[in-house]
């Protein structure tokens, strides 16, 4: 300042100055004067200078002009290349083929039928031939096809980081086998993921015989084997439990998320829904948990207590059954809840099912088996089948063993195993080039399950084949061949290995492959008695101290999207909103409202969690319905070397994970930084509007039209300006399509969302775009929280001041979120007969067809987005950018490539020449581009930038079915698709749904299922009072709570509705 003052003094002759700076004539001011625009505005501050940019631009345009003049206006010439030799006579161009196969999971397999189009696997469906299967899948199976086309797959055989030929690598395996033959495998150890493959078990046995001193360890970061281990311990023989949720009338789940994160959730959902819809009465689900899980959201009664206190409940229930003296200590509220629940269990003796969650310690599982025995469940709702005892999962032993060569079979131990040993040599068989690859001496690229022969057993013990649909894209090796070579087997062909394991006749083998399962059960259910001495010991265990703000409980759980990290590089999974939190592209530290306010943290605050001296930093997410003083950490994120999609997404909870899924004694510290979390639904409440209509079973039985009565007030009808063209067109149409979705069945598992993405070539957009609300899912699952109006005191919905839940930052601290109910509602284009979107399209790009579909002509759309603005359901999706052309590595932003400016080899470049020559290239690296083209469904247009898109009830499937019927009809008039003939197509969401919650069909056929559903009194149209006449309708959700329970209540949403929109009166009483 003194300098400025000196300048001021020396300045002479100047009379007017605009600021002290000018007066003082500081260098900054000179600079400012010199510049016309503020810093940064006039320069292109990137690697490419403006001059360079213009040079290239002009050159490119000149070339482009030449191209125009030279090539003329003709379309580019296209070549048709037929076969030289006609292949198999059954091959028909353009016709899909379907193959039965299965996706192996940790403790079972999902029977599948995979569609292959001209040799490429395109879409995964469930095998509906499989006994007791409705053809549903789960989200992991749906997404697994994208892994096949993942550009970051391990593609090469590598030795010490250098690429070697396949032959060389296979020779190394033979050498390995020879090296350990003389010393019977001393120093050889295997670290394998669990598997149900009989062929692998056979090879494992061969290896054990050949190398008797070798060690085999099984390790899964997410341990689903505990059910079997506990059953084996409880019944004193190797058995595996099968839970029959369909046969149980009362289900008590002790922290068991069987609908969401447990293995085999597809099967569980299917059976659970069968029980809910059973003719002899709806089943009832009690859930005791700390995290808010999907199962909790679907439960009729949910008790929110810390995970480590659940053992007390189990102890109490056991003492109720009077097999041992109780030592349970529970507060009076919980006691009342649990004892009423116990009465319900007693009344339904023989028809109850008690399940313990896989993250709970084995004691709880043992207590659960004891309870099941006491309530007569064993043999009824729980059957036990003989099982193969799994090999040691005692990793302590692995660390103690002197290992020379460690063979890592799948998994990613360097990432998710904190005590990963460092032997002399690591031979790794893996699907990705990941964290473990870096530490391995030999790397063998694994073939995808759609590329390799194999076999597996489903959770109920049925043998299923895994048959390849395509040759390994990058020459990967199958697990069986890999093991056979180590074993030094003469037969290393995986097909022959599986065939040999299967045995039987060639006829049986063919049938096995065709059906996709072998319907021969070689076992009888086992019965037994729980060894009560275990139970007595557990019951006398001291009570675990409760957690507090200073000593928090941490729960590590399997993420519903990336699993244990294996789907981290799968863009569909990363962008899939979590079924409860709706978070995409991240994991978070889930915490209850009360705990958050005590610790003074809010959504997005980065906190450092310390547990047993280890630390990890992650963002806070306040989760309604969480138990107090518990932290929920999803595993599988924070990958350091996952690939272009998954690297660096979220934080790595494995850093503080030591193998126990529930731990206490954690503390958190605010770092002061924040992290932006992208959710697809920031508003939590329905505000009393009846989008989702619910009723308790009792209420519904008294008043079956309860859902209809929530229909809003319709506007007065004036004569329409012009008639709806559909009214005329539908007179001559063959079908009228419609859909019904049963909210009683929908559990919100997200499978339909991924199935739709796979079927309809829906791109992923990246976190930044999700934050802008630009996610592209055609079907989304809306999740609403509802709460008891006693805690949620909104006197009037119409009063804006009373509506305190306007935006996320406010609602996260509202008390009403403490004990919430959650409802899920799939939302997709409703195919309104009087569609508001159509009236506002200036170019008629969206119009009705004669069968009632609201269709989109992409090539006509000019992108005004009026339709989306006018859609009351917000189901239209706009391609703001060319998402299909954007490189995966640029998904995270902050700058996005375009043909004019894009990043290649780490530098921003402008390359109009390449772009002009081949407009498809230039932006994506070549490998990505080739693979993404392979993965697309050829029946659906890939949309470009500036185009609106939305669900059309899978119009490509409808047309395919119609054409097939017309070809069959030939010169006759038998062209109508009917349900009786089984020719009605299934939409992708319907086919994938494990709960069978979606029905699609012809509403002009009075015998169709969809008509029957729509005639159900529960049927209602969302926002039907807008007179949009949607073709998609919903069946109201029925809850089945126990009237005797202390938390018995009408569905909160119904009560909210009554308070806000229905004048405080009960539905059914009419409005004044």
């Amino acid at each position, binding site marked *: 300042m003194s300098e400025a003052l000196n300048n001021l003094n020396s300045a002479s002759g100047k009379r007017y100055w605009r600021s002290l700076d000018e007066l003082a004539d500081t260098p900054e001011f000179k600079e400012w004067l010199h510049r016309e625009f503020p810093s940064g505005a006039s320069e292109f501050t990137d690697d490419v200078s403006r001059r360079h940019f213009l040079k290239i631009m002009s050159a490119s345009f000149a070339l482009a002009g030449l191209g125009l003049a030279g090539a003329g*206006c*003709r*379309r580019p*010439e*296209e*070549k*048709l*290349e*037929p*076969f*030289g*030799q*006609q292949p198999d006579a059954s091959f*028909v*161009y*353009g*016709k899909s083929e379907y193959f039965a196969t299965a996706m192996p999971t940790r403790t079972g397999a999902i029977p599948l039928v995979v569609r292959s189009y001209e040799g490429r696997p395109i879409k995964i469906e469930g095998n509906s031939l499989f006994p007791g299967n409705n053809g549903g899948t789960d989200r992991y199976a749906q997404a697994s096809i994208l892994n096949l086309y993942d550009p970051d797959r391990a593609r090469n055989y590598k030795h010490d980081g250098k690429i070697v030929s396949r032959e060389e690598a296979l020779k190394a395996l033979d050498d390995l086998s020879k090296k350990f033959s003389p010393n019977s495998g001393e120093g050889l150890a295997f670290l394998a993921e669990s598997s149900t493959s009989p062929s692998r078990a056979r090879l494992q046995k061969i290896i054990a015989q050949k190398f008797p001193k070798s060690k085999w360890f099984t390790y899964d970061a997410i341990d689903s084997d505990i059910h079997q281990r506990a059953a084996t311990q409880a019944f004193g023989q190797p058995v595996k439990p099968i839970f029959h949720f369909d046969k149980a009338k009362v289900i008590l789940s002790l922290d068991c998320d069987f609908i969401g994160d447990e293995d085999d959730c597809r099967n569980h959902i299917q059976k659970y829904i069968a029980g809910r819809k059973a003719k002899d009465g709806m089943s009832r689900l009690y859930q005791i948990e700390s995290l808010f899980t999907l199962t909790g959201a679907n439960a009729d009664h949910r008790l929110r207590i810390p995970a480590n206190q659940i053992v007390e409940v189990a102890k109490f229930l056991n003492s109720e059954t009077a097999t041992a003296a109780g030592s349970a200590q529970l507060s009076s509220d919980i006691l009342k809840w649990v004892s009423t629940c116990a009465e319900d269990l007693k009344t339904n003796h023989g028809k109850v099912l008690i399940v313990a969650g896989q993250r709970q310690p084995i004691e709880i599982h043992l207590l659960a088996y004891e309870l099941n025995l006491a309530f007569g469940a064993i043999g009824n709702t729980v059957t036990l089948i003989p099982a193969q005892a799994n090999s040691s999962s005692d990793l302590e032993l692995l660390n103690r063993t002197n290992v020379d060569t460690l063979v890592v079979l799948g998994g990613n131990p360097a990432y998710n195993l904190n005590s990963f040993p460092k032997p002399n040599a690591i031979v790794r068989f893996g699907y990705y080039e990941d964290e473990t690859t870096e530490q391995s001496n030999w790397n063998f690229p694994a073939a995808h399950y759609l590329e390799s022969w194999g076999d597996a057993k489903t959770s109920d013990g049925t043998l299923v084949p895994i048959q390849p649909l395509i040759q390994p894209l990058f020459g990967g090796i199958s697990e069986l061949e890999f093991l056979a070579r180590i074993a030094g087997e003469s037969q290393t062909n995986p097909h022959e290995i599986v065939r040999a394991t299967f045995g039987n006749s060639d006829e049986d083998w063919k049938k096995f492959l065709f059906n996709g399962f072998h319907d021969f059960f070689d076992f009888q259910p086992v019965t037994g008695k729980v060894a009560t001495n275990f139970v007595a010991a557990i019951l006398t265990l001291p009570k675990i101290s409760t957690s507090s703000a200073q000593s928090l409980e941490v729960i590590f759980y399997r993420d519903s999207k990336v699993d244990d990290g294996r789907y981290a590089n799968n863009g569909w999974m990363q962008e899939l909103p979590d079924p409860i939190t709706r978070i995409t592209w991240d994991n978070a530290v889930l915490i209850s409202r009360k705990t958050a306010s005590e610790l003074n943290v809010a959504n997005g605050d980065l906190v450092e969690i310390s547990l047993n001296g280890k630390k990890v930093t992650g963002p806070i997410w306040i989760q309604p319905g969480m138990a107090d003083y518990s932290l929920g950490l999803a595993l599988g994120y924070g990958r350091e070397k996952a690939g272009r999609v998954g690297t660096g997404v979220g934080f790595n909870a494995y850093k503080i994970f030591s193998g126990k899924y529930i731990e206490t004694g954690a503390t958190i510290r605010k770092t002061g930084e924040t992290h932006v979390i992208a959710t697809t639904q920031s508003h939590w409440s329905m505000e009393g509007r009846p989008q989702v209509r619910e009723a308790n079973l009792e209420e519904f039985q008294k008043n079956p039209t309860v859902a209809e009565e929530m229909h809003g007030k319709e506007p007065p009808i004036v004569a329409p300006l012009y008639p709806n063209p559909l009214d005329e*067109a539908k007179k*001559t*149409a*063959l079908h009228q399509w419609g859909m019904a979705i049963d909210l009683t069945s929908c559990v919100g598992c997200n499978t339909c969302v991924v199935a739709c993405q796979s079927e309809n070539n829906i791109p992923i957009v990246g976190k930044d775009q999700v934050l802008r609300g630009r996610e592209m899912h055609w079907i989304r699952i809306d999740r609403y929280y509802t709460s008891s109006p006693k805690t949620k005191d909104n006197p009037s919905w119409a009063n804006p001041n009373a509506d305190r839940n306007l935006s996320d930052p406010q609602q996260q601290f509202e008390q009403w979120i403490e004990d919430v109910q959650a409802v899920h509602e799939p939302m997709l284009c409703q195919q309104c007969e009087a569609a508001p979107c159509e009236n506002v399209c200036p170019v008629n790009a969206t*119009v*009705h*067809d*004669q*069968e009632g*579909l609201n*269709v*989109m*002509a*992409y*090539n*006509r759309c000019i992108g005004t987005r009026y339709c989306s603005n006018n859609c009351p359901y917000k189901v239209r999706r706009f391609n703001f950018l060319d998402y299909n052309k954007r490189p995966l590595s640029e998904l995270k932003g902050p700058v996005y490539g375009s043909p004019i400016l894009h990043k290649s080899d780490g530098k921003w470049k402008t390359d109009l020449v390449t772009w002009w020559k081949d407009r498809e290239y230039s932006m994506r690296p070549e490998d990505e581009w080739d693979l993404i083209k392979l993965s697309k469904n050829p*029946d*659906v*247009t890939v949309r470009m930038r500036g185009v609106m898109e939305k669900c*059309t009830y899978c*119009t*490509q499937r*409808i*047309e395919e079915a119609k*054409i097939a019927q*017309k*070809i069959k*009809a*030939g*010169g*006759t*008039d038998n*062209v109508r698709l009917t349900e009786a003939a089984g020719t009605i197509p299934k939409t992708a969401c319907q086919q994938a749904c494990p709960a069978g919650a979606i029905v699609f069909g012809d509403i002009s056929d009075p015998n169709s299922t969809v008509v029957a559903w729509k005639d159900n009194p529960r049927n209602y149209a969302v926002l039907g009072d807008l007179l949009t006449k949607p073709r998609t309708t919903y069946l109201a959700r029925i809850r089945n709570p126990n009237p005797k329970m202390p938390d018995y209540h009408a569905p909160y949403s119904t009560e909210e509705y009554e308070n806000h929109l229905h004048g405080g009166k009960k539905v059914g009483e009419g409005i004044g």
Partner: protein
Amino acid sequence: MSAIFPKWTNWLPLWIVVILALVGGVVTAAVTIYFTQKYTRDGYQPVQPVPFSHKVHAGDLGLDCRYCHNMVDKTAYANIPAASTCMNCHNQVLKDDPRLAIVRASATNNTPIAWTQVHVTPDYVYFNHAVHVDRGISCVECHGRVDQMDEVREVKPLSMSFCLDCHRAPAKYVRPVDKVTDLGWTWSTNGVQAAHLQTVEGKKLVEHMRMESLQSCSACHR
């Protein structure tokens, strides 16, 4: 005071209007004539790698279209036959003809012959051959008299309006299903009577087969 603007400038606005109208008219006319598929595609006749004559095979020898294009009534695509199909006859007929050298090589080595596509629909059009051919729409309606062409050329515009012409009035084009590949077939040898019969019989066929002749977007765009 002299005029700043000479007198002729009074007519300038009128001239501008007239010239603009002329230019605009010419541009509009040029676009409507030259930017249509009728102009850009009609008569397109690329040179093919093999001098194959449809006239000889389909016309003079009377081979059915479906002998070679054997999947046309089963699937969306009218396949170009594999070289092995050619060799069914040509391993005896014209065995050593040099014009067939490429075909023989293709059949032996199982390498494709790169034919140039003549009839192209845009990628966003999902045209299905089978549903047309199996339901009484003849090849000739879109491809013309291929049996009279030595080298195939495009004779119909294959534009959206061309498709819609037929989809709006299928009775004018439909014929009995068994006459679909008989390209020269008409309802009668007498032209006037044939036209009359087409309207009468065509209408009957449309009703009998319950032809939808869809005109909504979803029929072709998915």
